[in-house]
């Protein structure tokens, strides 16, 4: 049955996922090509100097991209469930509603995490040729909260989409924007090193929020 749920989610999101991957790899690829080009023209020591003295990571351009892609993917997965109250079909299936929602969210998280992990791998592979391992780690630690923001944005989108009244949907939206702000607060390199475990806890907690929306849907709280 899990395979079947994954099948449904895949049909909904496969085109969107291609767009998500293309956009993510496009942005990361562009940044990496740029870094490579500068390294070849001005030499790696120049990049080292800028990175250490100016706290630069050379890929700030995609800071908000994972967040937008997380929202896009969430919309593509959960909006069809709410069209014509299709969610009733899903919740009527002879499968635990709690497990159903968990599988649906895990599907999205897995695909997004795979895309983000490949992006991190691209950064590591390119940076490892130019910088020392400490600098590569610094770059990855700078980018990690942005990717985590993408996962958080995805879960919050599910939370907002699955809510069935506009009044609360707007309240959840405002709350979600504030929560996302926590992930994207500081742009300086490695600003979140010590906060990463807390961000992970935040994501784990956000995983439970769509259950509130579904419980309200089942109680008949609808516009």
């Amino acid at each position, binding site marked *: 049955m899990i395979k079947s749920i994954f*099948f449904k989610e895949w049909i909904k999101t496969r085109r969107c996922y291609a767009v998500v991957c293309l956009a993510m790899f496009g942005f990361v690829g562009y940044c990496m090509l740029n870094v490579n080009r500068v390294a070849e023209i001005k030499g790696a020591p120049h990049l080292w100097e800028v990175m250490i003295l100016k706290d630069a990571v050379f890929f700030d351009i995609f800071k908000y991209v994972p967040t937008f892609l997380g929202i896009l993917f969430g919309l593509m997965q959960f909006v069809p469930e709410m069209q014509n109250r299709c969610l009733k079909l899903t919740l009527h299936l002879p499968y635990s509603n709690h497990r159903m929602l968990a599988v649906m969210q895990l599907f999205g998280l897995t695909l997004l995490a795979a895309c983000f992990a490949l992006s991190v791998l691209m950064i590591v592979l390119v940076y490892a040729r130019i910088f020392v391992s400490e600098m590569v780690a610094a770059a990855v630690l700078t980018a990690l909260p942005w990717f985590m923001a993408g996962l958080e944005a995805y879960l919050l989108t599910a939370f907002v989409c699955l809510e069935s009244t506009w009044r609360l949907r707007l309240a959840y939206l405002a709350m979600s924007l504030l929560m996302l702000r926590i992930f994207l607060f500081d742009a300086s390199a490695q600003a979140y090193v010590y906060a990463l475990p807390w961000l992970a806890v935040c994501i784990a907690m956000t995983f439970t929020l769509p259950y509130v929306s579904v419980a309200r849907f089942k109680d008949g709280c609808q516009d």
Partner: protein
Amino acid sequence: MNTIECSGLTHYYGRRQIYKDLSFVVPEGHILGLLGKNGTGKTTTINLLNGFLKPHAGQVRIFGEDVRAMRNETRRRIGLLLEGHVQYQFMTIEQLERFYAPFYPDWKREAYYELLRKLKVDPSQRISRMSNGQRSQVALGIIMAQNPDLLILDDFSLGLDPGYRRLFVDYLREYACAEKKTMFLTSHIIQDMERLIDDCIIMDYGRILTHRKLSELMRTVRCCSFAAPAGYELPENPDFYHPERKDNRIEFYTFLPPQQVQDVLKSLGASFSDFVAASPQNLEDIFIGLTGKY
């Protein structure tokens, strides 16, 4: 044995009471139609039966289990048709079948495709690109393949042309009779209901107006009329439904036998002559007679 048992259902939307202390049962193998004007609580009842609404008070039990805490094995025995024949729009006919099949151990693939062969549509066609009629057959095919013991159908005629409506009703009737299935359904097209149902609940605002066998309803309800002088108004009586003046006659519907009606009229001091008690032509006449046009 009862398949559906609703007891003491009370529900409000905000301060508006939909109904209070509503109770009814649907015995196994019966086809029950729920009739009511807009806003009388038909969809509310369907939502309560499906477990998509928490009543303020009361309980719904299906196959002996509370619908709000139903086991998967029990939910598997219930086929659900949502208003508008809603199905996953983003899937094709083939994908829908592939998706649903693993959830139902007794899945009848051939039942699904047999029904859909009549549509002459490509199995790779997406649901969103289908007409209402075609979608209704897909939704029906899914239910047939599930082979449930109870079918809950919400406004199954909605958006269907006469051909598809007839096809839908005939298929359901044949299926229910052959397999002794229980059905609970609503529709605004009362002719369709009449062809299908054994029992009938007519809802009025906040209450069940009547719940009885269709044959009994057709036999019992009378459309009575009498000649009355101009300006005369029939005094209110709970047994006389929606009295209406038509030219020089007053017409109303009642469950009482003709002789008793005349006795009541006399006891009310009504001035009447040329009393006529006729059996209504069809269920629609009975429905409008008992619930009124407005």
